[in-house]
């Protein structure tokens, strides 16, 4: 081992974060207002520290000393004086205040409900949702397929309409989430509670201690991503609020209704639906592929989130363009991507082999079975039993009443005589004897269940009967190396 080079972990982490490259610096009008800049700036020192356990421990100690008196706002308790410092006010406005205005206008009756507007809102909702799931998520964050520019432009523009940030910001956060799932570096760490992973992570200020960075060079290489990030505010304002008002106004003469229903309320709905992937998809459902981490598969979440609810599969096979693999599972995004590939708008759809998927399923099932198995009493192993010869047996028979030999194994059935389904008489006449043939079909061919019951009553192995015993045990799935080989 010493002769061989090991991968330079610092360098690897630098690479994984994409910090080695001079990527184009793309800024938008909000700049530092987004509040994420401080979380991604990592210098070479930070990488070294992130790669070496000793360094990390040392730094933790240093941090502890340095910040002994002053804590970051996220570590301080909430008080009446500092509560406003805990909050990220920009996000507060975008995901709480603006939608609340929408609900106020809707419930107070100031905006009349027009069926046509509502229908348009649904349509627009679907367009935005598809842009988020197929575009933001599967195309840009996971590169699970490649798309031509018209489709990318469509996704980029209507993705803005959901007011969930630019592709660059979103994709970066999502890559971190996948790289650091269920750790403190995960921006929407599901272990910190349903509420935190749903909205809390956006509304609260993050702790710079857990800063991390992912490689998003391929995103910044894309002119559409750069364009969208640079003009994000304008694009967002236009697609999220102005466009729906104009469309509803022009076609249905309902400018205000369009603004409220197809704008504000639609934005609220789609935001909540997206947040559900981070929260619900880590909380409800089952884990058929891997239960070491929190992601879960659930049809209900899938229904809300355009098919992203099969999250356990997704975390196990992130670069698969599908999220649902069974025909009956609801995943419209998969259909959209596949259809677009048929008409040539996308290509290079990535799929994991069925073999790999089945392997994960089988391994997880095995894990579950093993867990269940460990709760049950399977009787002692043959190798743990003493070996008796004839004298031993005859001596023991005189002392203990309920010994029966079956296939070279001595069983103490005294506790079972009354329960024996075939009657006490049969079992009593076999006490102290070898009942192999009677057990195996001479009187009654016992079921697998009977074998299991019998195994719990094992006492010893007869000296010459070891081979028979091994064969007998193999019938209920116990495996021993046969003595023959030696």
């Amino acid at each position: 081992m010493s002769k061989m080079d090991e991968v330079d972990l610092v360098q690897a982490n630098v690479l994984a974060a994409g910090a080695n490259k001079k990527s184009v610096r793309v800024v938008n009008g909000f700049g530092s207002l987004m509040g994420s800049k401080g979380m991604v700036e990592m210098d070479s020192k930070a990488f070294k520290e992130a790669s070496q356990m000793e360094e990390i421990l040392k730094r933790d100690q240093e941090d502890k000393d340095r910040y002994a008196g002053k804590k970051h706002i996220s570590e301080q308790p909430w008080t009446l004086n500092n509560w406003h410092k805990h909050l990220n006010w920009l996000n507060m406005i975008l995901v709480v205040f603006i939608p609340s205005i929408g609900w106020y206008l809707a419930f107070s009756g100031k905006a009349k409900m027009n069926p046509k507007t509502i229908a348009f809102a649904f349509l627009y909702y679907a367009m935005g949702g598809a842009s988020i799931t197929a575009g933001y998520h599967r195309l840009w964050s996971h590169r699970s397929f490649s798309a031509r520019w018209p489709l990318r432009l469509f996704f980029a523009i209507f993705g803005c309409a959901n007011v969930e940030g630019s592709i660059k910001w979103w994709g970066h956060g999502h890559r971190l989430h996948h790289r650091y799932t269920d750790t403190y570096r995960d921006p929407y760490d599901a272990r910190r509670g349903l509420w935190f992973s749903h909205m809390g992570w956006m509304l609260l200020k993050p702790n710079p201690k857990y800063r991390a960075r992912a490689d998003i060079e391929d995103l910044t290489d894309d002119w559409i991503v750069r364009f969208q990030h640079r003009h994000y505010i304008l694009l967002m304002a236009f697609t999220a609020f102005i466009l729906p008002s104009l469309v509803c106004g022009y076609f249905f003469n309902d400018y205000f209704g369009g603004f409220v229903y197809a704008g504000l309320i639609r934005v609220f709905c789609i935001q909540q639906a997206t947040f559900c992937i981070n929260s619900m998809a880590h909380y409800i459902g089952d884990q058929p592929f891997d239960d070491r981490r929190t992601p879960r598969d659930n049809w209900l979440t899938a229904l809300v989130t355009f098919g992203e609810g099969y999250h356990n599969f997704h975390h196990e096979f992130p670069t698969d363009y599908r999220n649902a693999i069974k025909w009956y599972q609801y995943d419209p995004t998969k259909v959209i991507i596949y259809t677009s590939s048929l008409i040539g708008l996308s290509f290079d759809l990535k799929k994991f082999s069925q073999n790999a998927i089945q392997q994960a399923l089988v391994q997880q099932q095995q894990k579950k079975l093993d867990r269940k198995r460990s709760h049950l009493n399977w009787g002692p192993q043959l190798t743990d039993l003493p070996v008796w010869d004839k004298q031993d047996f005859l001596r023991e028979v005189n002392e203990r009443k309920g010994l029966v030999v079956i296939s070279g194994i001595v069983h103490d059935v005294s506790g079972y005589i009354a329960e024996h389904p075939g009657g006490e008489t049969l079992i009593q006449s076999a006490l102290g004897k070898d009942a192999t043939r009677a057990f195996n079909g001479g009187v009654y061919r016992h079921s697998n269940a009977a074998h299991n019951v019998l195994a719990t009553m094992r006492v010893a192995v007869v000296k010459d009967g070891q081979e028979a015993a091994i064969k007998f045990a193999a019938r209920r799935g116990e495996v021993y190396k046969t003595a023959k080989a030696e």
Partner: protein
Amino acid sequence: MNDGIPEFDFSDLVARTNYGKNDDAEELHIVETKDEEALDDIQMGQAVVSAGENEEVVKELPEIQVSSSTLKKRDPHIVHLLKRMSLQSTILCIILPLFSLFKIVLSRPQGVTPLFMYFFGFYMIISQISLFGGYHRFFTHQSFQTHIVVQLAYAIFGGSCGLGSVLQFTSQHLAHHRHQDTERDPHSYSVYGWLFSMWGHRFFLGNRKSRRAIQECRNTFVSTSMMVHNKRLKHDGEKEVLLQPPNHEILKVQDENYVSLLLLTLIVIPCLVALYCQVPYWTSVYYLGFVRMSIIQQQWLLLGSLGHIKNLPFATQPFSNIRSAINFPVTFFWQFILFGEANHNFHHEFPSDYTAGSRWYHWDPSKWSIWILYQFGLVNHLHATNSQQVEKCALQQQQKLLDQEKSKLKWGISIEKLPIISPEQFSELARQQYANNKRALVVIEGIVHDVTPFIHNHPGGTALVQLSIGKDATQAFNGAVYSHSQAARNLLATMRIAMLSSNEQVKQTVWEKRMLQQSQDNQRRNNRQVTYTQKNHYAAGAA
């Protein structure tokens, strides 16, 4: 087995008893004169071929020809067929039900009063309970012991369903359980199809093998009950115990007087009811006798055929899929049709469970009645399977399915088969291969992987893989950069090419080794299990 330990000698227990031989037994001698071992070899061969294949029937043909050619005179075909028909069960299970069906379709029910309908319902439920709870769960599977009077009721009303005397029914059903899915099974769905398992076996006496199996089961059953009987006689002075396993005398008397019993239950009791309810005698005999009998017995026959259709849509086999017994889908519905026996897979795995796997919300009056009798102290030794045992069986079955699934998948080359190279060799090889062929070799956990085709698919980016070419990336792979998922490990395993020598890491860290080893072992074990269980048919036959 070894000379030391006395063997439990059950042969005297299963000794041929003179009494109770029906005419089937006469023909059996033909078989018994044959060389037993040869016969058993044939059966074993067939059993291994896998039960339920038509091949078995084909294989059977030459044998029949052999045996029939040894007979001196061959009957004309029709006579031969007629000789092989069973008169009693044909009348009771084919002709009477058909007659009832046609009559009920062609003419409206007449002269029926509400009071009569109550009697009908009452008689119906009593007979059902006696058949399903008494004949089946008590006499055949002995899942409890009951009072002598209850036994008598079971014997009378169970007998009224026209499925034969307790002895006939029990021996047939035990043979069915013991030799399920083989030719020895008296109503094997997998060998002869649904028509046979539903009605065919009622028409004909059945093949020699099944008749012999029935006879064996009958002997075992009779001698067991006789043993209990004799034991009781020995303790004559003590107080007579009334809660008994199947009482020998009842079995004997019922079997000998089965025809009179039928007359009583099909004719006399309905006539008495008619007298009381003021309905015509014939109407009463028809409904209380024939219709009731037909419905119940057809229910039973339906269970025997449908319960073994392995590919019935949505049917499940949670406890064992070696045999054909299934648990019905839509259990709640089927429990009504089959009177609480819809969990047939459960029943075949745990035959002596008095619940037959039905839950409290399932329609199962026989279970309820047994439970009520138990509360009144008329039943004891009630046998219900421990839930741990049920879980164990289900687990074993799931494990089996999983192993099958596992063995179908590609798990990469097993570690033992990999060539071994030293770390120096590896460094040299990796450099050369990269320079000449652009092949990327990476060591992870002491195993050399050729990741060339995967570089551009790596979700974490190409650069990271390129950085690790010719190096040991164990730590980076295991969390220093990214903690890879199980799926990633599986994918990696398909890219193995060699193992590093003098590497103590391999044995501890590489989990695949165990995985592969297990899957092979398990497969071997499964195959073995099938052979063993089928050998047991053979063992049972020889005994």
